[in-house]
């Protein structure tokens, strides 16, 4: 049973998490916008954990079907998000040494 107090605590968690997200992303160079969108897309794939818990606790066919779909989509979000982000970021590998030097010259 979720009480009023846990609701308040939840609001605090939401507030602090929102500030964290803001701080993590601010002052990002525009070349990283796409990889970051993809990376944050991967992070919200954690919903698969919620879907798994819901499916484990399913006690009717409806819950099983919806839970199955949920886990499937969540898994797609996680794996797809990871693979796409990894491929995008791999493009930055060879430039690891060149990029800071260029910045220093300016």
């Amino acid at each position: 049973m979720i009480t009023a107090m846990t609701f308040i605590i939840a609001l605090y968690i939401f507030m602090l998490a929102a500030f964290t997200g803001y701080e993590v992303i601010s002052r990002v160079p525009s070349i990283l916008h796409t990889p970051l969108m993809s990376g944050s897309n991967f992070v919200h794939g954690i919903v698969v954990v919620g879907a798994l818990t819901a499916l484990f606790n399913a006690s009717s066919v409806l819950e099983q079907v919806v839970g199955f779909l949920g886990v499937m989509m969540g898994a797609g979000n996680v794996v797809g998000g990871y693979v796409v982000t990894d491929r995008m970021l791999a493009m930055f590998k060879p430039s690891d040494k060149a990029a800071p030097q260029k910045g220093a010259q300016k």
Partner: protein
Amino acid sequence: MILLEYIVAISALIASGLLVYGLKRMSSPVTAVSGIVTAGWGMLFVTAASFLGIFSVSEAAKPHLVVNVILAILALVIGGGWAGWKGRSVAMTAMPQMVALFNGMGGGAAAAVSVIALTGPKETGIVPLLVTVAGGLIGSMSLSGSIIAWAKLDGRMNKPIRFGGQRIVNAAVFMLTVLLGIMAAFLYHQDGGGIATLLFFIGALLAGICMTIPIGGADMPVVISLYNAFTGLAVGLEGYVMADPALMIAGMVVGSAGTLLTVMMAKGMNRSIANVLFSNFGEASASTATGPEKEAKSVAPSDAATTMRYASSVIIVPGYGLAVAQAQGKLYDFVKQLQAAGVDVKFAIHPVAGRMPGHMNVLLAEAGVPYDMIYDMEDINDSFADTDVALIIGANDVVNPSARTDKSSPIYGMPILNADQARQVFVIKRGMGMGYSAVQNPLFFQDNCAMVFGDAQAVLSKMVEAVKALGAS
């Protein structure tokens, strides 16, 4: 709380720490690669730990546990396998729509959790039920909206769909859906609750579709980023319903980070988010698209190549057309030839070149173009006036001088690359078609501009041959 639950809870705590830390590392080019790996370990850890939950399922679910676990493993393998294969095999140019699709799936998963919370036997009380409804609404909208965004970027749905009174219809659909959602929460396990829940989710999916269909393709990156934030928010809200702090934290971090990313992207296009969502971009262009009455000049690829070979400086402005033609590699071959002939070559990247901010940088990096040749708009815009040749490949709106001069133009005020100020401008383009914003480009009719018609791949091949024929003197 039994020991097992502590283990699950601590795992989730560590995982959410790793996820946020990974995201932080991803926000700098130097640490970005390790960032996704860090976040990946966190995700693997929390998913594995969630399987410990099978030892503490509710009484009602115990008889179904074996079936449920088999279903879960099956779903993980099917969903993960499909997405992994798709994500690996898709071309770099198609990345934006893949991000949209995977994001939509996350929204769908959040909506599924919401369905179970609204129909399942677990008593939670009215506040969590209302939160469930909110998460379900946002998640469903993100699912259907992302699918529309994917269809548009993938070229399966080309024209924005607009009709009279659309905003009123959209608002009505949305309001009705919210009302149904509130009904579904209050009628939980009562007569009519099931019907209300069903109608609510249909309405929510419909709302996502209605919201996305009138938006033009050029604005899709901003929309995808917005839906990304939506999904994060939905996941956070469902995390509260599931009493899972890891979901709450990861979801809300993405919700706010995604919102900020969306604002930054919209700023790069000189638009506000409200402007993207509610103004019908391109609608006014029908009246302003008359353009100058002059004919655009056109030249052969070899002539343009010769001009560049004997120029002292060339700035290349790549656009989405280059990526579509898969001509990045060919372009770099040509650039290397010019460099061998002593020409100073630079790349100028508009913040929204390609289909998303940073997309073009990724595509050029894939072709092997070194980073020190690639310049951002702010760094290079003043150099165009001292440059012999600006070579524009498959870009249109981002070099449209109307954005600077013509107040009646729909793209007025958008920051553009001043390619029109170069002494000579060459534009490689398939035809005289308009850009994504469907606005005529007066640059093409300027005296210092010549069109090189053809597919970028074919034109660049001819240019490479032409320069080769001139010899390496």
